[in-house]
C-alpha cells in the first residue's frame, strides 16, 4: 500500500536501454543526469518517477508506463498484504518478487485466493453443522437410523428361540430403517452440495477489484456509449439511475461483454460481478456525463452535495463517479473510493496509485467507520499514513429495503485524495496546511502497520 510496495524498475530500464543500443553514458546525457546517477537508478538505489521517468521512456521510444505498470504495483501490494495476513511476523514486501518474476507472483496470489476460499467454505460448513437446525436434524436422523439398525441386528444375531413373527418384525425394521437412512443421507448430500457460498472468502470481489484497478477505473468505450445515450427523464435519483441501467444494458451490453471477456476473470461469479460493475459504471456515466460532471466538480470544488443536487443522484453515486474521472488529459482529482458495511467489511474499493486501499478491513482510525455514528453528515479527516498525507471524507448511506419489514441496507462511503491536491477540495478548508496538529496519525490496516504506540492496535505487538 502507499509507496511501500512499489516495484523496482531499474532492471527494466537497463534492459530497455541495452535493447535500444545505448550506453549508460549516452542515456544519462540525453536525460540530463550523470552516468553515476543513472547507474543508481538502474540498480534500484534511487526511486524515480514523474518527469525523469517520462524522459527516459521518451528517449528509449517506449510508452511512459512501460516501467511502472499499475498492475505490478497492485500485485506487489496485495501479495505483501496476504503475506502479512498469513504470518504474524513482519513479512518482506513482495515488490522484489514481482519485479523478478511477475508470473510467479500472480500464481502465488492465485493459490492464496484458492486457499482462503477453501478455508472459508470449510468454516461455513463446520458452522452450518454445529449451529444450523437442519444439519442437527440430519445428524440426529442418521444416528437414530444407525442405532436402531445396530440394536436390531444384534438382537437378530442372537435370536435363538425367537418367535417367527417377532423375527420378521425385526427384519422389517432393519429394511425400513436402511431405506430411511439412504433417503436422509441423500438429502443431506444435496444440502451440502448447495450449502456453501462459492465466494465465501470474497475472492471474486478481489478479482474484480484488481481488474478495475488495472484499468485505472476508466473505460473510454463506455463513456462514449453513455455520451450518445438520451438524457434520463426527471424523477428521484434512484429512478433516474434505474432508467439509465436499462438503457445502458441495451446500448452498451456488447461493449461490456467485450471488456469482461478481455479481462479473463477466473470464475463465473467474478464475471457476473464485473459485468454488474461495468453496467453501473455506464449508467453513472449516462446520468453524470464526463465533461459536464468534471466541470461542475471543479467549479464546486468537489462539493458532493452540490453535485448530488445538480445531477439528481445519491451521495454514493456522485462519490463513485468522482473516483472514475481519470480520462488522460482531462483528469479530475485522483480519488480512491471505499465502501464498508457496519461490520467493517470492505464491499467496494477503487484504489489509486497514491492511495492503495486494504483488501479486508481498513485501519479503525479511518473516518469511514465514524460515519455510521453521524448519519447524514459528511465527516472529514486529514490523515498521515506512514509519512504520506491524505484527505478523507466519508458519509453513512442507507438503501431502502425492497420489502417493508426488512431493515435498510447500511454502508459508509469514503473518498480519499492526496493532500497535495487538498486546496482544490472544499472539504479540506477545515485543515489549513499550517495546522498539522489536526492531522490524524493512522495506518492502512492493522496487521501490516508499523506505527508505534497505537491504542487502537488489534494485531501485532501491542504498544500498551
Amino acid at each position, binding site marked *: 500500500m502507499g509507496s511501500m510496495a512499489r516495484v523496482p524498475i531499474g532492471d527494466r530500464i537497463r534492459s530497455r536501454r541495452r535493447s535500444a543500443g545505448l550506453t549508460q553514458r549516452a542515456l544519462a546525457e540525453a536525460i540530463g543526469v550523470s552516468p553515476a546517477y543513472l547507474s543508481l537508478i538502474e540498480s534500484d538505489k534511487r526511486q524515480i518517477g514523474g518527469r525523469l521517468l517520462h524522459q527516459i521512456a521518451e528517449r528509449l521510444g517506449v510508452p511512459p508506463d512501460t516501467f511502472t505498470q499499475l498492475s505490478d504495483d497492485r500485485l506487489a501490494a496485495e501479495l505483501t498484504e496476504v503475506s502479512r495476513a498469513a504470518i504474524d511476523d513482519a513479512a518482506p514486501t513482495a515488490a522484489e518478487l514481482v519485479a523478478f518474476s511477475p508470473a510467479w507472483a500472480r500464481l502465488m496470489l492465485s493459490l492464496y485466493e484458492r486457499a482462503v476460499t477453501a478455508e472459508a467454505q470449510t468454516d461455513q460448513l463446520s458452522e452450518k453443522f454445529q449451529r444450523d437446525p437442519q444439519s442437527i436434524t440430519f*445428524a440426529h436422523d442418521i444416528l437414530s437410523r444407525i442405532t*436402531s439398525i445396530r440394536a436390531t441386528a444384534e438382537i437378530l444375531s442372537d435370536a435363538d428361540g425367537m418367535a417367527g413373527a417377532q423375527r420378521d418384525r*425385526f427384519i422389517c425394521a432393519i429394511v425400513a430403517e436402511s431405506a430411511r437412512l439412504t433417503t436422509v443421507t441423500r438429502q443431506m448430500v444435496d444440502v451440502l452440495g448447495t450449502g456453501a457460498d462459492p465466494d465465501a472468502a470474497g475472492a471474486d470481489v478481489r478479482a474484480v477489484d484488481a481488474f478495475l484497478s488495472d484499468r485505472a477505473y476508466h473505460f473510454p468505450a463506455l463513456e462514449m456509449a453513455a455520451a450518445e445515450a438520451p438524457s434520463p427523464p426527471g424523477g428521484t435519483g434512484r429512478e433516474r439511475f434505474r432508467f439509465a441501467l436499462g438503457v445502458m444494458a441495451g446500448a452498451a451490453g456488447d461493449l461490456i461483454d467485450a471488456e469482461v471477456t478481455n479481462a479473463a476473470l477466473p470464475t463465473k461469479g467474478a464475471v457476473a460481478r464485473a459485468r454488474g460493475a461495468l453496467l453501473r459504471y455506464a449508467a453513472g456515466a449516462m446520468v453524470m456525463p464526463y465533461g459536464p460532471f468534471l466541470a461542475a466538480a471543479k467549479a464546486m470544488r468537489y462539493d458532493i452535495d452540490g453535485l448530488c443536487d445538480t445531477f439528481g443522484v445519491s451521495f454514493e453515486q456522485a462519490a463513485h463517479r468522482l473516483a472514475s474521472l481519470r480520462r488522460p488529459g482531462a483528469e479530475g482529482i485522483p480519488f480512491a473510493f471505499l465502501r464498508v458495511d457496519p461490520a467493517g467489511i470492505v464491499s467496494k474499493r477503487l484504489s489509486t496509485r497514491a492511495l492503495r486501499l486494504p483488501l479486508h478491513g481498513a485501519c479503525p482510525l479511518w473516518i469511514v467507520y465514524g460515519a455510521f455514528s453521524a448519519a447524514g453528515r459528511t465527516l472529514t479527516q486529514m490523515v498521515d499514513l506512514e509519512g504520506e498525507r491524505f484527505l478523507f471524507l466519508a458519509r453513512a448511506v442507507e438503501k431502502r429495503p425492497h420489502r417493508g419489514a426488512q431493515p435498510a441496507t447500511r454502508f459508509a462511503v469514503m473518498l480519499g485524495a492526496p493532500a497535495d491536491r487538498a486546496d482544490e477540495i472544499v472539504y479540506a478548508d477545515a485543515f489549513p496546511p499550517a495546522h498539522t496538529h489536526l492531522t490524524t496519525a493512522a495506518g492502512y490496516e492493522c496487521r501490516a502497520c508499523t506505527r508505534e504506540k497505537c491504542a487502537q492496535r488489534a494485531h501485532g505487538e501491542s504498544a500498551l
Partner: protein
Amino acid sequence: MSGRVLIVEDEPFIAEALEFILSREGITVTVARDGGAALTMVGGYDLIVLDIMLPGASGFEIAEAAAALSPRPKVCVLSAKGQPADQETMRTIGVDAFVTKPFSNKALMETIKTLLAAP
C-alpha cells in the same frame, strides 16, 4: 433380574429393540414415545432410560423432573453427544450414566444392570 424401567424414546424401532432386550432379562418395561407424556410418568420407576431430543419436552427436562422425586429413580441418557462437557452437564442435573448412540446392546445392558443393582 428384576426392576421397573421407563424407556423414553420417540424412535419406534429403537424403542422396540430396547423393550425387547430389557424384557428378555426379566425387567418390567414401560415405553413413552413423547417427552411431554413422559414428564407425567416419571414416578414409580427404578430407572429411566432417556433419549435427549424428544417431542414435547427434552430429555434434560425429564431428568430434572426425575431428580426432584423421592425416592429418586436412576437416570441413564442415550445421547448422540459424547463430549466431556456434555457429560458434565448431564451429571449436574442428576443423570447417573450415559450411553452414546449407536450403542452395543451388551454394553447398554451392563450399564442398566449396574444401575439397577446400585443402592
